[in-house]
């Protein structure tokens, strides 16, 4: 078991190392002078030359990469040419808002996806099954920015049922920052009213993010419910007169969780990339909006950092999923030990 974890860990480290090399390489072969970009067009030639020397831009590529990697290990990702602050500071400021949103979206998609999946599987070929299939088709074909715009338009602007953009209304003072999660910080500051408002602001963007995953997780759960329903143990339980709800959520859902956990791990990274769009529509002051701003302003250090952070999240989540799966599903464990 430890060898399995060790192997996966090594693999993950290798992937991250490769990713850093790839993105650093792309950033360096791009036309344009990073030193000039960092200083702006008013700087003199001598100033640019000095910064080039400081950034090791006159050295060969491997040397440049070495210095960059050494700084990365110290948590120094360089300075953002757009915000004029260290990129690390920017990331610390913006990441919690995005994580709060994504965790909320994951929660929604896990609960709603599982429930609709179980029901659609049990009441196969009913209107509910049809509806869930329709939504899943639509969910896959709809870019999340379209979902975001539609939801904002219908529920916030026309029906006025939900608040508009941002994390809080402008007139509300945010609580002192402790975790960076607005809801948690408000509760810690003893202001449940702000926490509630913040939660309301999160509903539409979180649903925009979750829709496609609800659809997918629902379909996967449905498939495995349908598969398991034909098994003997379910017939036995039925004959024993166990209540339908208990049958569904205790005996049928459990074996269906394994494929869903795998998908949820993958989903987490895709939520991060879809957050790019949803945060843009909802003016969410998070990591993804920072990333988009960096990209639109050709802020090289920030772009590299953004890709690395997402790669890191993706790799870590996948590693965790693999380890969780190993505990959930003994066949994986045995197979890895056998080989």
């Amino acid at each position, binding site marked *: 078991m430890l060898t399995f974890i060790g192997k996966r860990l090594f693999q993950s480290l*290798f*992937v991250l190392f490769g990713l850093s090399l790839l993105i650093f390489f792309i950033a360096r072969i791009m036309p344009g002078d990073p030193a000039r970009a960092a200083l702006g067009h008013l700087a003199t030639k001598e100033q640019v030359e000095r910064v080039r020397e400081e950034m090791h831009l006159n050295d060969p590529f491997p040397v440049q990469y070495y210095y960059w990697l050494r700084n990365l290990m110290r948590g120094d990702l360089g300075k953002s040419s757009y915000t004029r602050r260290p990129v690390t500071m920017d990331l610390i400021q913006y990441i919690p808002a995005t994580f709060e949103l994504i965790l909320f979206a994951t929660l929604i998609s896990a609960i709603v996806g599982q429930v609709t999946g179980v029901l659609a599987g049990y009441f196969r070929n009913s209107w509910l099954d049809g509806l869930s299939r329709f939504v899943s*088709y639509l969910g896959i*074909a709809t870019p999340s920015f*379209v979902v975001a715009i539609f939801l904002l338009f219908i529920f916030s602007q026309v029906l006025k049922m939900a608040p508009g953009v941002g994390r809080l209304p402008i007139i509300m003072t945010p609580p002192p920052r402790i975790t960076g999660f607005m809801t948690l910080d408000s509760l810690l500051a003893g202001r449940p009213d702000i926490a509630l408002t913040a939660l309301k602001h999160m509903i539409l963007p979180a649903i925009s993010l979750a829709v496609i995953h609800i659809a997918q997780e629902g379909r996967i759960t449905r498939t495995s419910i349908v598969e398991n329903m034909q098994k003997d143990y379910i017939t036995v339980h039925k004959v024993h007169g166990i209540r339908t709800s208990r049958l569904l959520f205790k005996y049928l859902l459990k074996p269906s969780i394994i494929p869903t956990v795998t998908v949820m791990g993958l989903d987490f*990274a895709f939520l991060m*990339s879809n957050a790019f769009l949803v945060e843009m529509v909802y003016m969410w002051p998070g990591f993804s909006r920072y*990333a988009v701003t960096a990209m639109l302003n050709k802020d090289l250090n920030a772009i590299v950092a953004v890709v690395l952070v997402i790669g890191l999240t993706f790799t870590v989540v996948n590693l965790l999923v693999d380890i969780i799966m190993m505990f959930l599903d003994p066949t994986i464990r045995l197979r890895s030990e056998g080989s």
Partner: protein
Amino acid sequence: MREQLKTDLWVSLKQKRRGFAKGWYKFSRNLLSVLGLVVLILIVLAALLASYITPYPEHAKPYTNFKDAGKPPSTEHFFGTDRVGRDIFSRVIFGYRFSLTIGIVVLSLGVAPGVMLGLIAGYHQGTWIETVIMRITDIFLAVPPLVLALAITAMLTPNLKNQMMAIALVWWPWYSRLVFGLASSLRNEYFVREAELTGASKLHIMLKEILPNCLAPVMTKMTLDMGIVILLGATLSFIGLGVQPPKPGLGTMVAEGAKRLPGEWWGAIFPALAIVVVILAFNLVGDGLRDVFAVEEV
């Protein structure tokens, strides 16, 4: 042996001809897939003939007519007009041109290298060649394609050409992974072993023995991917890193229209629906193909 081979060949030829009719029968049983195909043909025709069939073809170019700006949908302007008076319906049809171009160019650039690398890795299963190719593939797959494509386009200059290059650069690994999986199991089949024993060259085995057996899943994935690549292209344009205004990219139009919600809702909603329709059509056709080829994992 030789006679047997001849009969086999004859049977397979006959099956091939019958296979098409059978395939079409299977495909046509799924009404949704047929609907998708019809919609798709209409979209492709409309995009090809855009200059002749759209009511205001000149509106796809830089054009302003403030007299007609911000008009709601009417019989004159089916989807209304935007803030500078351009007919949104005409622009959506022209926007399909960009979307289809992105899909076709990206897939033709990305699929061939992906398939070849997967084939090579699958054939050399268990050797260092497999390790090198598949680990590089892993690196590309460690970041969602949208993020990597965005980062690359951002570091280049945002325009249609660079956008397509960036998406193609992040698209090949999916095919190498798919084909690797297929090829590594096919290479242990008897017909491959037999070809090896008769002294067929590596190239022959890879291209003539293994590749044809990978084509059905690859084709199915390509159809499904057309939808996803179009989605990605629209997304890049929406963010502002793709087709640049005043060119009518569908994503660009949604971004421009979104600024004027909720008052002039038609500016964002119609282009957004247009994106959904084309992606949905490709997905439905892809699903139909999946049933025809009986492909399980794509």
